[in-house]
């Protein structure tokens, strides 16, 4: 259904060309919202939508934007989309919006957006840009979900707010690892993910 190239555009960012662990983009929010799984999921979805839409819009405008002021044009498009998403979240998921606090606004300065707009949308057709945006959004969301999964499971013994570690374990002396809730552990976890990812993809280097 999809040609080889479009397939690569969509699926490459999930693994080989992952925005977080390979391109090193969008680290700030990836680390800060991953204490629990739910905000991480919401953040992943929000970023995916915004990257995909802004990629399409910039790609449609790419021939009319003057080179010198392109960054400001890109920022305004992104800021408008982020404002929309933030208002929607405040209306329909207020508690999650409060948990994410400034990090929703910080999607504007998320490097994934600027990186993809500069590197892809400015030179490619809208349809390819949409796929590239979706692929990078999912690649970002996957890392967020992996980090949040371990932090919530080990840090508070629950997933998506439901307790998964049985009470009998606690009775037997199991304790939640408070360290996992600390900001420092997010960095170390991402470091370990990069380690694993590079060991697995070694032959391609």
């Amino acid at each position, binding site marked *: 259904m999809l040609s080889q190239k479009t397939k690569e555009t969509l699926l490459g960012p999930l693994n080989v060309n992952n925005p977080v662990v390979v391109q090193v983009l969008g680290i700030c929010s990836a680390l800060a919202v991953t204490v629990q799984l739910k905000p991480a999921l919401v953040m992943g979805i929000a970023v995916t939508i915004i990257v995909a839409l802004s990629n399409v819009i910039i790609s449609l405008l790419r021939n009319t934007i003057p080179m010198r002021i392109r960054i400001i044009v890109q920022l305004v498009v992104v800021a408008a989309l982020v404002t929309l998403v933030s208002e929607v979240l405040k209306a329909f998921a207020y508690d999650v919006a409060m948990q994410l606090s400034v990090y929703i606004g910080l999607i504007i300065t998320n490097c994934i957006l600027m990186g993809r707009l500069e590197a892809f949308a400015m030179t490619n057709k809208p349809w390819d840009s949409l796929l590239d945006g979706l692929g990078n959004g999912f690649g970002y969301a996957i890392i967020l979900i992996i980090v949040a999964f371990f932090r919530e499971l080990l840090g508070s013994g629950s997933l998506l707010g439901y307790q998964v570690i049985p009470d009998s374990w606690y009775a037997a002396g199991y304790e939640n690892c408070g360290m996992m809730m600390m900001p420092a552990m997010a*960095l170390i976890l991402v470091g*370990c993910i990069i380690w694993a990812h590079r060991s697995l993809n070694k032959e391609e280097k």
Partner: protein
Amino acid sequence: MEHAISLFVRSIFADNMIFAFFLGMCSYLAVSKTVKTSAGLGVAVTFVLLITLPVNYLLQVYVLNPLGLGYLSFILFIAVIAAIVQLVEMIVEKYSPSLYASLGIFLPLIAVNCAIMGGSLFMQQRILLDPENVKAIAGIGDAFAYALGSGIGWFMAIVCLAGIREKMEYNDVPKPLQGLGITFITVGLMAMAFMCFSGLNI
């Protein structure tokens, strides 16, 4: 005055942009290879913060709040930041071409440095706090103190990391962990060390 000083010290140590909120990570990780370049970027970030944060504070308090246009804050803040970064870029290019060359793409990218935007967004939240709260920003003086403290905190963090990375060149790190991986773990350990400031009561 006392409040502003306490805000200043807290924003350097306890509320450090990098170690407590992970703001500005992208350029933090990418530019911290040598102490000299990272110090240059640190100064640039501090300078931009010091201008944009008070300007955004004034806009928020005297323009957006009275007119009820709070939802426009993202667009307005980013426009102010982008304009000021453009200005700084022009100044650095004119007076220090070597610094301009070594910062490369990361100079225009200060506009999308999360620390700058994050500073303004935190300021927006802190205006709403009770003035007695140690984190509250109740006037233009507080906004300056917060901006300067956050900038110095960021500067210190990037110079420290660059120093460690220079030393680490000679270490025998496992191959897949080299470069980015070990840097993340180093920052994690530094963040852990900085956590001891979080109990600081000033």
